[in-house]
């Protein structure tokens, strides 16, 4: 297998993912409506409840919807990451995961391609959200739209890698409600997506510690800072570290020798 084979294979996987996404228009709309509901309704309702003081990276007082925009982008990335991991579980159940795994390229590469495909789709969604958000008062600096791109990619990869890892371990993941309850909601609410963490710290120190240990908090902060042309070192280190960790766990999970697939196939 030559490099050109690797290239064609990844292109094929990305192409399929994009086709699947575009073919399911309902999925595309749902993926957009969710954060928009939060932005248009929730943020409006809460803007007078939560006072937001000046915290980095912002330099002035900001309306609430500006504060939660990066959090909602994080939500898009997380939902997409979980959704593609779900589709992998579904793929495995229906067997199309098997057609992927019997193809000749190394398994880690196939998983990486899957991951990249998922991230491309979620980054596109994030930009569509930002464009709509522009008409709702979210005006980051012009170059912020560019500087946020690497943060979107890195955070998206981290969250998709988490999804991939979960898909290799958890069998009952096909139940999306379960993922919502046990993964998405806890990660989303115990983070800086909806409220600045100093308010959490005032309310409850333990919860604050949990929020700080939540990789999703750092994904959101990385995006928040990057959107305002700033670089958050700590968030970068945590997101990068978690990406490596989750990716390794996912590769182990799908390894034919040690993987959980091997232990699980008890029946005929």
């Amino acid at each position, binding site marked *: *297998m*030559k490099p*050109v*084979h*690797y290239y*064609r*294979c990844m*292109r*094929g*996987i990305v*192409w*399929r993912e994009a*086709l*699947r996404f575009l*073919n*399911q228009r309902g999925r595309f709309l749902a993926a957009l409506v969710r954060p928009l509901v939060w932005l248009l309704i929730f943020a409006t309702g809460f803007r007078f409840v939560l006072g937001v003081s000046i915290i980095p990276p912002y330099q002035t007082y900001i309306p609430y919807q500006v504060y939660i925009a990066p959090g909602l982008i994080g939500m898009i990335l997380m939902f997409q990451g979980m959704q593609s991991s779900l589709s992998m579980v579904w793929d495995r159940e*229906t*067997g*199309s995961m*098997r*057609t*992927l*795994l*019997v*193809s*000749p*390229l*190394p398994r880690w590469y*196939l998983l990486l391609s899957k991951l990249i495909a998922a991230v491309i789709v979620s980054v596109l969604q994030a930009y569509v959200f930002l464009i709509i958000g522009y008409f709702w008062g979210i005006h980051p600096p012009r170059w912020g739209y560019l500087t946020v791109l690497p943060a979107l990619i890195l955070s998206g990869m981290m969250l998709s890698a988490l999804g991939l890892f979960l898909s290799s371990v958890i069998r009952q993941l096909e139940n999306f409600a379960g993922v919502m309850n046990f993964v998405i909601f806890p990660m989303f609410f115990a983070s800086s997506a909806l409220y600045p963490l100093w308010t959490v710290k005032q309310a409850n120190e333990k919860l604050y510690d949990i929020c700080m240990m939540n990789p999703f908090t750092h994904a959101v902060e990385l995006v928040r800072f990057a959107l305002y042309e700033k670089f958050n070192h700590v968030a970068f280190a945590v997101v990068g570290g978690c990406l490596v960790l989750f990716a390794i766990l996912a590769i182990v999970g799908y390894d*034919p*020798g040690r*993987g959980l*697939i*091997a*232990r699980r*196939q*008890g029946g*005929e």
Partner: protein
Amino acid sequence: MLEVKTQTGDASAAGPSAREAPPLVVEGLSHAFGKRQALREVSFQLERGDRTMLLGLNGAGKTTLFSLITRLYNHRGGSIRIFGWEIQRKPSEALARLGVVFQLPTLDLELSVAQNLFYHAALHGLPRREAATRLKREIERVGLTDRLRENARTLSGGQRRRVEIARALIHRPKLLLLDEPTVGLDVASRQFLLDHVRMLCREEGLAALWATHLIDEVDDEARVIVLHRGQVLAEGPVPEVIRRANATSMREAFDKLTGERLE
């Protein structure tokens, strides 16, 4: 003569120089899930043009065997070589020469037939133009050219299976595995598949391993491997297996060999 035989050669021959290596050599293969022994010292060999029916009851170990040959997970004892390439040491070389039709339907129902086939070609690193030529030919051979642009969801079960066979052949493997491919198909679709694979073996020298629990699918021109409780009880051309078992039909031979009755 229906079977094109080549010299078996040294069974231990392996690696890129072994161009004459047999399509599939399974030697002393054992596998267990926890305490349950799924396969016990399974050995057999396929030659070019061989159409071999892997006959066994449900739970005999057929799916485990297929999972190991396709490297869904690693085997614990013994070896599997595809054209001389050990599946665990050289998975890429081995898998590139292998076509598979799985028991479960594996088409992506969100995509069209052509998109499904292009996706498979990409996984095998084929350039798009080449893939287009090949998939036209393969889909024509299964008589579904007019359905190429349609969504896979609109196809019947039998048609989906035909697309899966076409797909398994796009990267031109010389070894084809079929895991109970006719389950749930009507009589006509089933006959089509049997005839198609027979033709592929006879005219193109393809080696095929076809797992089944339906004795009707085992005809006299094929070879048969009787797998029972993880062990190979008999292997060879069907008439020979029947003769050795002192039986008059494959059904009787199977009953005698296993002491159980087949569907």
